[in-house]
């Protein structure tokens, strides 16, 4: 059963040093505010899990939170490299980063397998490529009917999933709309789940009978953080700040510029700083 609490309380109670943490979001609804709180609380030795590590993981890696990264595509979407990620992999700064690397199909299926309580995910993939040579968690199973060999990867079962969504109701159920990514699967696969939302409403009101809702009893904590996905976006609330993503490239290229930015914008701030971005869209 989910509990409403402050972001600081939610992170403090659910995210521990050494945990595997999936802060998910497929460009849309990326929980920047929650990730910043993890950084402020100085979590260490995390295994960060995400299909598409982007700016928030770049920040967490650069700030030394991560010991390992499980991922399938690490970049600044539409812009280029993640410079903090590259600095950690290429030069071990601030410390070396262990990689468990997959393709998207593997990660998506592995989250779904975790949500479904299965020990592994099955898909047709990884044919002829080099990744299985460097990732021992890519194996093969044989179809007992056709003899075809298929790819298998372990189910993802993070200790904590953190996602952002549009709305929670007073019972702590969460409604998510638009580009869904793997957020529902990440929440259902995780042992604990924190959801930040744009707003808490009395009732979701009229909606599709098949609306994507995470029931309260699948969640650990629900936190109202308007604007909490900025500079990514929240469908129906605010748009993606593409200029921020373009501008991040220069900040992240340089260790000192990065540290200065983090001090000014993360360490010296709180989640309330996001509220300025959390305006409700006209539509």
């Amino acid at each position, binding site marked *: 059963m989910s509990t409403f609490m402050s972001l600081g309380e939610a992170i403090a109670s659910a995210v521990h040093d050494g945990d595997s943490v999936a802060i998910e979001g*497929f*460009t849309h609804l990326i929980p920047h505010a929650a990730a910043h709180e993890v950084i402020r609380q100085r979590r260490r030795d995390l295994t960060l899990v995400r299909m598409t590590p982007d700016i928030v993981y770049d920040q967490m890696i650069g700030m030394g939170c991560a010991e390992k990264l499980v991922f*399938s595509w690490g970049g600044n979407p539409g812009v280029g490299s993640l410079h903090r990620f590259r600095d950690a992999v290429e030069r071990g700064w601030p410390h070396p980063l262990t990689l468990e690397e997959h393709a*998207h199909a593997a990660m998506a299926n592995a989250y779904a397998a975790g949500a479904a309580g299965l020990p592994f995910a099955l898909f047709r993939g990884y044919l002829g*490529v080099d990744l299985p040579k460097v990732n021992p968690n890519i194996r093969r199973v044989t179809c007992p009917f056709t003899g075809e060999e298929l790819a298998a990867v372990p189910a993802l079962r993070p200790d904590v999933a953190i996602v952002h969504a549009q709305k929670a109701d007073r019972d702590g159920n969460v409604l998510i709309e638009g580009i869904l990514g793997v957020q529902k699967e990440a929440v259902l696969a995780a042992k604990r789940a924190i959801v930040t939302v744009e707003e808490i409403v009395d009732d979701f009101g009229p909606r599709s009978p098949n609306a994507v809702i995470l029931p309260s009893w699948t969640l650990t904590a629900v936190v109202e953080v308007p604007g909490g996905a900025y500079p990514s976006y929240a469908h129906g609330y605010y748009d993606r700040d*593409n200029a921020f*993503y373009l501008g991040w490239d220069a900040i992240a290229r340089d260790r000192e510029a990065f540290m200065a930015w983090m001090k000014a914008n993360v360490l010296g701030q709180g989640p309330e700083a996001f509220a300025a971005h959390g305006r409700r869209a006209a539509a």
Partner: protein
Amino acid sequence: MTLAWTATEMMTVVSARALRSSDVCFVGIGLPSAACNLARLTHAPGITLIYESGTLATRPTVLPLSIADGELCETALTTVSVPEMFRYWLQGGRITVGFLPGAQIDRFANLNTTVIGSYDKPVTRLPGSGGAPEIMTHCGEIFVTMKQSRRSFVDKLDFITTFGHGEGGDHRARLGIRTKGPTRLITDLCVFEPDPETKEMTVTSLHPGITRREVQDATGWPVRFADRVEDTAMPTESELGTLRDLHARTRRAQGLAS
């Protein structure tokens, strides 16, 4: 002759022309997205565009910066989860053509987007696989788009991220892959297509003003040319106009200088 278009525009136009109105297309960000939308706005109005973020049959009025901009969802027929996208739509065999880029490519159109140098101690760490390995396997056919240089068109990949024609010949079939793989490699200089037998990527069309020597100089293996090499048709005024309007709309929407 003065080139009235950029190399990127040439690649985009040639890519767009390869698409049919009946295609169901798995679109990547950047040039593929521009090409697919150019096709939709010109000769292929019925084309179905799918982005791996889950948007089915989307009709963006501006180009997305990311694979999952709000615009893609707002103009889509509907949006499904990423696991469903990879299972029911891509692996389910419902996509006719996919676009892929690479940081490195070899003569059989295998791609590297993982590392330059060794995996454990890379000189340059690249983004990684993303959806590419399974896009290459599951789409009916693949168009690869890359600018040519000896740094990227290499004799041997540092890492096989994505399996094109492997070692050539029937290598795909031997792995049980039933799709065609890379059927075109569209560069800023020319178009390659796989030799029917060996599957080596072979130049079948040279862009206006480009010589065989220029292609060879930008390629890290001895380039094969088809028995008959066509001249790529110049971009038309309509193609260039539509493409430039699309980019201008996009820059305005992103709040950038037009």
